[in-house]
């Protein structure tokens, strides 16, 4: 303890020496870049309300704290990146950055963080942007309470809200990302936590993982995106307490899983999605306590899926509960609640006495011949499904829930 106190004192001494540089449109220092050039390590730059028409502002190897008062506007005038940072221990707070130009050759961002450590990007508002916050080769950062929005129309001409490439140990929380291409995007990033964000109306995905292992996303809401979340080529992803809703359209998904191993989905709610979960080539995934309500397809299992276990989920009023391709491959449905279950429970133990078959004949047929979907809701299909339910002939015989719950699962 005695050894630490002098160190702490030294630290205190140095930190209190940090100065405040003020910037305002009418001040002596009227440009942010100038203020940055003037400031020393550890200084705070206070930016007063006003509009600053600047771009390519650079913070290189300086631990600065940019603090906006009353959301000063940095207008990049569609010329390149607004703010580039390569430093440790910096923070950006309370800025409003607008008008980032679209480019086909370089990724212009409102905030570009590159090769940095220990940073905080908080309470910023980014509007009309190409890329919002672009983080590369950085670690131990916090990105929170930012509001990011744009007007993405086509995928080729739009960027991502929060883009993380080759990063680790980042926390992305309480952000609101609207109308960009991918709300939050992670590529080659690990140990990141994504919590309490709202991704709404994004053109492609609300949240997108590519080759990003050991990440988790919790308590997020994905509303009305092209697809809520796409998890691709990643391992050990933890997905909990998220809400996927209204991802609705001919090619829309709530959650798109492609080549995913060893993941866990728990306590998520899927509501009104065309396809709530589409799983393609996924192994060892546990689906526990999720709720599927009013979706077109609740779960669509494509080929090459092994050991996917669905336990204690609630399937309520979906057009198709499960659509299935291929062999059983140790995939398992057990102890779920199915609103379409018509069996009985004579011994009153809460478990239906007759196994439930979640794959309807029609969904089996549609899998084989996609055009057959045109007979959706015709009387013949109703008769067919009913007779198949009574005595299954075509649907995979082993694909049953032997312990269907009589009541909706509570968690």
């Amino acid at each position, binding site marked *: 303890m005695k050894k630490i106190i002098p160190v702490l004192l030294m630290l205190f001494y140095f930190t209190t020496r940090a100065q405040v540089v003020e910037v305002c449109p009418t001040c002596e220092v009227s440009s942010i870049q100038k203020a940055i050039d003037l400031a020393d390590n550890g200084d705070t730059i206070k930016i007063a309300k006003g509009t600053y028409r600047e771009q390519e502002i650079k913070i290189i190897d300086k631990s600065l704290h940019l603090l906006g008062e009353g959301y000063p506007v940095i207008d990049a005038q569609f010329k390149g990146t607004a703010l580039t940072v390569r430093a440790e221990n910096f923070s950006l707070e309370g800025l409003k950055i607008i008008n980032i130009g679209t480019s086909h050759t370089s990724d212009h961002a409102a905030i570009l963080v590159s090769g940095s450590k220990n940073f905080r990007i908080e309470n910023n508002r980014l509007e009309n942007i190409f890329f919002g916050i672009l983080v590369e080769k950085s670690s131990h950062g916090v990105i929170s309470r930012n509001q990011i929005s744009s007007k993405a129309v086509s995928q080729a001409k739009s960027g991502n809200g929060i883009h993380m490439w080759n990063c680790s140990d980042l926390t992305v929380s309480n952000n609101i990302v609207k109308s960009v291409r991918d709300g939050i995007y992670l590529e080659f990033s690990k140990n990141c936590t994504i919590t309490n964000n709202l991704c709404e109306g994004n053109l492609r995905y609300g949240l997108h993982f590519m080759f990003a292992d050991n990440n988790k996303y919790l308590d997020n809401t994905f509303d009305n995106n092209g697809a809520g979340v796409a998890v691709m080529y990643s391992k050990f992803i933890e997905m909990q307490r998220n809400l996927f809703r209204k991802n609705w359209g001919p090619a829309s998904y709530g959650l798109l899983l492609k080549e995913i191993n060893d993941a866990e989905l728990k306590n998520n709610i899927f509501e009104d999605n065309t396809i709530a979960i589409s799983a393609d080539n996924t192994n060892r995934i546990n689906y526990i306590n999720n709720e599927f309500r009013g979706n077109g397809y609740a779960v669509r299992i494509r080929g090459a899926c092994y050991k996917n276990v669905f336990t204690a989920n609630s399937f309520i009023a979906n057009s198709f509960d499960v659509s299935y391709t291929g062999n059983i491959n140790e995939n398992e449905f057990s102890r779920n609640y199915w609103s379409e279950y018509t069996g009985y429970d004579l011994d009153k133990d809460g478990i239906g006495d007759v196994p439930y078959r979640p794959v309807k004949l029609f969904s089996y*047929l549609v899998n084989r*011949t996609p*055009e*057959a*979907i*045109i*007979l959706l809701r015709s009387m*013949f299909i109703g008769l067919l499904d009913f007779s198949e339910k009574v005595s299954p002939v075509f649907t995979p015989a082993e694909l049953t829930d032997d312990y269907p719950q009589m009541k909706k699962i509570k968690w």
Partner: protein
Amino acid sequence: MFKILKYSFFDLTRSSWSYVYFFFYLLLGSVLLFLNNDLSTAIITLMNVIIMIVPLIGTIFGVMYYYNSREFTQLLLAQPVRRSSIFLGQYFGVAISLSLSLILGLGIPFAAYGLFKSSAIWDFSMLLVTGLFLTLIFSALAFNIALSHENKIKGFGYAILLWLFLAVIYDGIFLLSLVYFQDYPLDKFSLAASMFNPIDLSRILILLKLDISALLSYTGAVFKQFFGTPVGTLASLGMLFLWVILPLFRLKRVVGKKDF
């Protein structure tokens, strides 16, 4: 013709069956709308009813009316009235009274629900238009069948069989051929096959108006591309119209020659 139409129509409006039919729709519409908080599912359920019940009622009513009014028809035939106007008048009497029951029965609860202010009005109007066409089509088909068969039992049998064929069996054959020829591109075929059956056509026209059409994915996209264009809409309505016109032509031709 209009005089006979008027007689048939008033004859039918006095019949309790028209009222039963009317009250059935009234009840169905009110229950679905007021006990269900989701308009879209109400319309889907109504669609199921319309594509099943409307053709069935149209068929049975048409056959029944023809056989029941045979004496009246014979009386009229003895008068100096054109044959075609007798039968067409009777046909339109039945079809219009059935359509009226349908439109009023469903229209009143929907109007009470405040539909005219909501955007679902177009889905609903498509529901009514197809219901109207199905009534016209199936009562025309029923008149044709009844005209060709003096034997009531045979006539009823064929009429029911026709309904069963178009409502159920056709889809079965359709599905079988889709599965059998699955190695070939089938969207054009399924488009054509659904055009030829008025029940399928009605079902798809309504489905495409609803959210659920997203489920049809790319097959649906092909359909939407077709029915979404003015040409497609005209073609499908024209097809339904053809289904009304052709049986009526046959009716006119047969009554002109038939020895009563």
